[in-house]
């Protein structure tokens, strides 16, 4: 059947079951938007392309589906770069369509031309520059296949304007394969056997769970495995939700701002079972002092992660869910009673702690109260910096996919648009964005999107008038020389809310925190709660960058 390239794309998206696109029109994608006008696919109009990518990212994390983005050529495309890099670092499935100048105009520095396939080369799983409209259907199919399988990630399709208007055949392939793209075979029985033996013989084992557990939908298996073997579980930031954090075997987060007991458990372990985690520097600290007594079993879908940072004794290359099921079917139970007793002592002696007294509001208190009021089904997105780390420490996540945060790239400005995507994907769930005053200002233009889409997102700004995490480092490591980290003046966020026609409350005293949060959660629409917090509160415990996990400040 003959149609235009733009129609082919929309038809292909419909065939892929795409329900929503996040985007922003521009000259080079007008033909595509023209065909979208007739489609049943919902389009969420953002106010900056970066937000389209983050919203698609938040959507993907909240739903498990692939996020879809459209932007125009040139500045539209380059505005996406941070969002694409963010998705790539956190292995989030995303298909991005960028407009491009006409084929004949490419390479001439034409108006709004940017070599976006070149610019994004290091931050995509794969990319296509479409040169033949007849290949469009198979390219779209390929993009979804690549984005959503294996170690997931963003795939970009660059669409010259004349390709969108060219006549093309719509022949949508049922399946697509590449000679150079193979998913890992399941680990062999021998590999599983050896891992099981090692687990059975361990006495101080720790499970270290990352975003791969969430991505593969393996949280149930992980919990079952931990319970059956009585092995405690620590998670990365991306792995929050891999096990309910109020579970007796949960140690909370490990690493730079991990709990004392998680860092001590990992450091004293004799076996580390890494599941869908990549031994990031924010987790390991100094590599040569990291878990020195531990054997390592590394389970990951990406073979290139196995041995990249830490040499594992056993590698199990495969999908976390499948591998955990295999391990569960033959597991040998280690004796961990004494080990769990030791960990209980660490937990008791060094819990996460803060002191809410006086008239200054402690951010940790806000997060704890928020968690109590929000319930376990609420979805929380965070910005980046102190707000993110306080959320990671004090917002106890019960279910996978309910904690959405920029892990690898650490993108300020991620949380608000990610909340847009999450709320679009899960319209019936409570969606909360935990923010700082700095991060919020990086993408606050998205309040317009929130209003336009009538999204009842609750934005909680932990307002200290600082670029707080950098200020904390300056305090601790640069002699309190607060170079360019005071973000004064902070705009009046309540008035800003009013300008957008949404509710806004300011909270200045500790006793106002709970009523304000309750009011926000019960409010039917979007709300900004501007919580003026203790300005110089720090995130503790803290392992200085490149330090040893057991040498924490602030415990």
């Amino acid at each position, binding site marked *: 059947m003959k149609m235009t390239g733009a129609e082919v794309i929309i038809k292909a998206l419909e065939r892929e079951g795409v329900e929503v696109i996040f985007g922003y029109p521009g000259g080079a994608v007008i033909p595509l938007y023209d065909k979208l006008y007739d489609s049943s696919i919902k389009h969420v109009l953002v106010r900056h392309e970066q937000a389209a990518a983050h919203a698609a990212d938040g959507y993907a994390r909240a739903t498990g589906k692939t996020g879809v983005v459209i932007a125009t050529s040139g500045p539209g495309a380059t505005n996406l770069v941070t969002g694409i890099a963010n998705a790539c670092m956190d292995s989030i499935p995303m298909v991005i369509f960028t407009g491009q100048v006409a084929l004949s105009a490419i390479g001439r520095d034409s108006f709004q031309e940017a070599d976006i396939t070149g610019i994004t*080369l290091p931050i995509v*799983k794969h990319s296509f520059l479409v040169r033949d409209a007849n290949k469009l259907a198979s390219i779209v199919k390929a993009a979804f296949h690549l984005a959503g399988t294996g170690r997931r990630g963003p795939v970009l399709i660059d669409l010259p304007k004349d390709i969108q208007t060219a006549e093309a055949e719509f022949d949508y392939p049922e399946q697509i394969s590449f*000679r*150079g*793209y193979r998913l890992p075979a399941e680990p062999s029985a021998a590999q599983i056997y050896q891992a099981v033996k090692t687990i059975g013989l361990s006495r101080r084992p720790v499970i270290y769970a990352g975003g791969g557990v969430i991505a593969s939908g393996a949280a149930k298996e992980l919990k079952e495995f931990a319970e059956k073997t009585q092995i405690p579980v620590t998670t990365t930031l991306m792995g929050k939700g891999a096990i309910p954090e109020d579970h007796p075997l949960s140690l909370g987060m490990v690493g730079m701002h991990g709990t004392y007991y998680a860092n001590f458990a990992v450091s004293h372990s004799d076996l580390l079972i890494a599941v869908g985690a990549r031994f990031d520097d924010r987790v390991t600290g100094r590599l040569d002092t990291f878990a020195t007594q531990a054997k390592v079993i590394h389970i990951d879908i990406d073979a*290139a992660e196995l*041995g*990249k940072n830490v040499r594992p004794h056993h590698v199990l290359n495969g999908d976390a869910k499948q591998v955990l099921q295999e391990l569960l079917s033959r597991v040998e139970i280690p004796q961990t009673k004494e080990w769990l007793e030791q960990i209980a002592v660490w937990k008791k002696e060094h819990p996460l702690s803060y002191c809410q007294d006086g008239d200054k509001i402690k951010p940790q208190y806000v997060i704890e109260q928020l968690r109590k009021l929000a319930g376990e089904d609420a979805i929380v997105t965070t910005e980046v910096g102190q707000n993110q780390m306080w959320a990671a420490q004090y917002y106890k996540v019960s279910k996978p996919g309910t904690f959405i945060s920029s892990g690898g790239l650490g993108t300020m400005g991620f949380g608000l648009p990610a909340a847009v995507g999450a709320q679009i994907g899960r319209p019936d769930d409570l969606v909360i964005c935990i923010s700082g005053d700095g991060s919020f200002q990086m993408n606050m233009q998205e309040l317009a999107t929130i209003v336009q889409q009538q999204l009842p997102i609750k934005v909680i700004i932990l307002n200290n008038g600082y670029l707080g995490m950098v200020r904390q480092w300056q305090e601790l490591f640069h002699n309190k020389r607060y170079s360019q980290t005071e973000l004064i003046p902070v705009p009046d966020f309540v008035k800003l809310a009013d300008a957008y026609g949404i509710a806004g409350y300011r909270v200045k005293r500790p006793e106002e925190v709970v009523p304000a949060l309750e009011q926000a959660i019960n409010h039917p629409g979007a709300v900004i709660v501007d919580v003026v917090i203790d300005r110089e509160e720090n995130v503790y415990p803290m392992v200085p960058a490149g330090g040893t996990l057991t040498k924490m400040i602030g415990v």
Partner: protein
Amino acid sequence: MRHILAVLVENQPGVLTRVAGLFSRRGYNIESLAVGQTHDPEISRMTIVVDGDDRVIEQVVKQLEKLVDVINVRDISEAEHVDRELVLIKVKAEPKVRGEIMQIVDIFRARIVDIGHNSLIIECTGDEGKIKAIEKSLRPFGILELVRTGKIAMVRGPKYEEE
């Protein structure tokens, strides 16, 4: 240690950039890279010489294998293999020294492919040692220009592993 990687890739625009970009952004050093179409016009073969310890090479291979356009990567350094480079050397050659130069060309089983007024272009293929040796031998006459290809390599014997 230096490793020779035989990399089969889709013969498509942008593949070389993807491979070269991977090396630079992950901090691996390419010592030489040669690329050309194979007997199957849809497939190109790259020969990449890279320096690094076993861990680095393992990462290089795994990262290359992650590229969708990369079909297959083999480290053939340990296997019995033939490797060749090609060099073109334009050397100063006044009539009185031409005889001497031609003797050197003979010894290296190289060829003279162009004769100019006071210069010769010499073509030589061989392994790296031979290429270095002929360059050294010709240097006293005055090398005017030199261009060489990257190394290409193939495993000896009947085995072929293109898929």
